[in-house]
């Protein structure tokens, strides 16, 4: 099966740009990255359908038709990525409403580790550090910082 080199190149460029953007911190950039990734993958489906041909209508010569199935799959994928994009946009907006930015935030463990590093303490999970205790430690640290 021969396949179009330009399609493959376009797909790989889009996918690599997408991956680069997904690694960003801002959710809007991640979103643009995901859209590029999705479109790159859609091109891959066209590659997988083999050489282009005529419209697949009954009565035509089957050897000259293009394969309609990957196109149907791509349509489904496009619809799904539309929904994903809408949802992520809404989420980025909500995050901006709540926090004033749309950065993807650290998860709780990472935040705890960062806090411990800031206060230069060993991890004390064994004597049950809770979020509230960490929270209080922080406040003390900050109060002292403001005084100093």
């Amino acid at each position: 099966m021969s396949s179009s080199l330009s399609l493959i190149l376009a797909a790989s460029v889009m996918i690599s740009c997408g991956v680069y953007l997904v690694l960003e911190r801002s959710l809007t950039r991640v979103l643009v990255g995901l859209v590029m990734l999705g479109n790159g993958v859609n091109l891959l489906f066209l590659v997988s359908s083999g050489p282009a041909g005529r419209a697949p209508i009954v009565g035509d010569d089957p050897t000259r038709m293009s394969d309609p199935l990957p196109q149907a799959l791509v349509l489904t994928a496009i619809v799904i990525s539309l929904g994903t994009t809408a949802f992520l946009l809404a989420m980025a907006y909500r995050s901006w409403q709540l926090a004033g930015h749309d950065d993807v935030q650290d998860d709780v463990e990472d935040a705890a580790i960062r806090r411990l590093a800031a206060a230069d303490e060993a991890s004390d999970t064994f004597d049950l550090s809770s979020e509230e205790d960490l929270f209080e430690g922080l406040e003390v640290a900050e109060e002292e910082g403001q005084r100093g």
Partner: protein
Amino acid sequence: MNALVPLPVILPLLGAGLTLILSRRPRLQRAVSTTVLGVVVVVAAVLVLETDRHGPQVIWIGAWKPPLGISLVADRLAAIMLLVSAVVTFCVLVYSIGQGMTGDGHETPMTIYHPTFLVLSAGVSNAFLAGDLFNLFVSFEILLFASYVLLTLGGTGARVRAGTIYVVVNVISSTLFLISLAAVYAATGSLNLAQLADRLSDLPPAVALVLQLLLLTTFSIKAAVFPLSFWLPDSYPTAPAPVTAVFAGLLTKVGVYAIIRTQTLLFPHSPLTDLLLWAALLTLVVGILGAVAQSEMKRLLSFTLVSHIGYMVFGVALGTVAGYSGAIFYVVHHITIQTALFLVLGLVERRAGSTSLIKLGGLARAAPLLAVLYFVPAMNLAGIPPMSGFLGKVALTEAGLRVGTPLAYVVVAAGILTSLLTLYAVAKSWNLAFWRTPAQAHEMAEQLSDSERWQGSPGVVRHRGHVHVGSGTFGARELQEARSILDVDDTSNKDFHQLLEEGVLPTRLPRTMVGATAALVAVSLGLTVVAGPVFGYTGRAAHDILDRGVYVSSVLAGGSR
């Protein structure tokens, strides 16, 4: 009887539409969704009996000629998964109705909850029944979309934060799934599982290996197998209790199901046995070490969830009838147990205002029924004989010993260690939350915060709102950010003792919530009683999936390749 096969997908979807129309009439909405899921339970039970008696039930949607259209297939494995998931979703629905889903006002809008929940159920059923890879992809998308909405219900700060990571990770895994679909189609010209089973064996081994790795990675993200499990413990605990419960019970198991299905049907004689065994080993050990370190019960259980996925991967990796049989039994056991435990935690949160082990204490006296409801599934999770968790672990251990490679022995040892550490983790949570008195808990919480306050930290220089540690500098902004992230617990800072003294807690729990939880705990105990027949069934299911002919010939009656 194959007309029954599409019902578990169609009924919830219709129900979702209907409940959306009825969003102004909560009572009718509740009636519709319970009826729909109740019927799905019955249909799934009938399917289990039918497939056990007459072999796989297949339907080609739209009456297309076999190799062309979309097929739904219910074989023994799919049918039992369908039944368990239907029972679990039904119990969770009843529970959430009891909770009112209006309990915390603006946080959980009722009107959206029911339709989304039904869509989730349809997606899960469709994933079990899908007869081709693209339909499997679509069903993953259906259930993921519903899960995005359920996870971020109400859009509070903590939920949006946790939801962002969840959504991005899952969208990326879906993209990976699409890439593997394109690759599979380019290599074989088909996406139907039964056709692929024939065609993939004709491919050069290197190409088949690439396809296998692509699919395995995709499903490992969904199933939270170790290196790809990072997203789970962070995103599940913030959601409302019934949502966390149904996610924990079902979503990762759909991933496990997809791994079982593709590994057996598409890639028998897999060259990846060792890789899977390593993945199982790491998932078991790393997951349970995470659980031991937690001081919040929801997070603790999320980590045990990750850890116990390792048992199922272990069973799959062995690739023998005993291994698959044990893995399927363990999936069934784990779905019921994990959901029941998260439902109990929802009750604990409602009764005591928190699920943090620091604040809780003395629940065994304050709410004895709740204590029993937690104790039984917790011991079952740890694998105390004679409960189903013990039986599942014994079956897997036996299967591992029978394979007898050094690596299999190591994983068996890790499995036993994990079981002991699980016991340690749940016993610790039992002691702290249920057994000690509230006054002790209060004292300990005070002491902890005191020691935090007075503990001088040498080597730390604080200056104008910055904290210098070694060569690193942390500004006020970072500190504030870290604090805002850590503030996940929306409840007040008071512990259970203080809340009791103030008398602000409800002393009675809604009967439907307790009833639904008790029913699920009873189901898990019932699983112990009927373990013999269930093992017989899973054994036959394991035979079926290893002997691929049954599946292939019943889907492609006529033998078209």
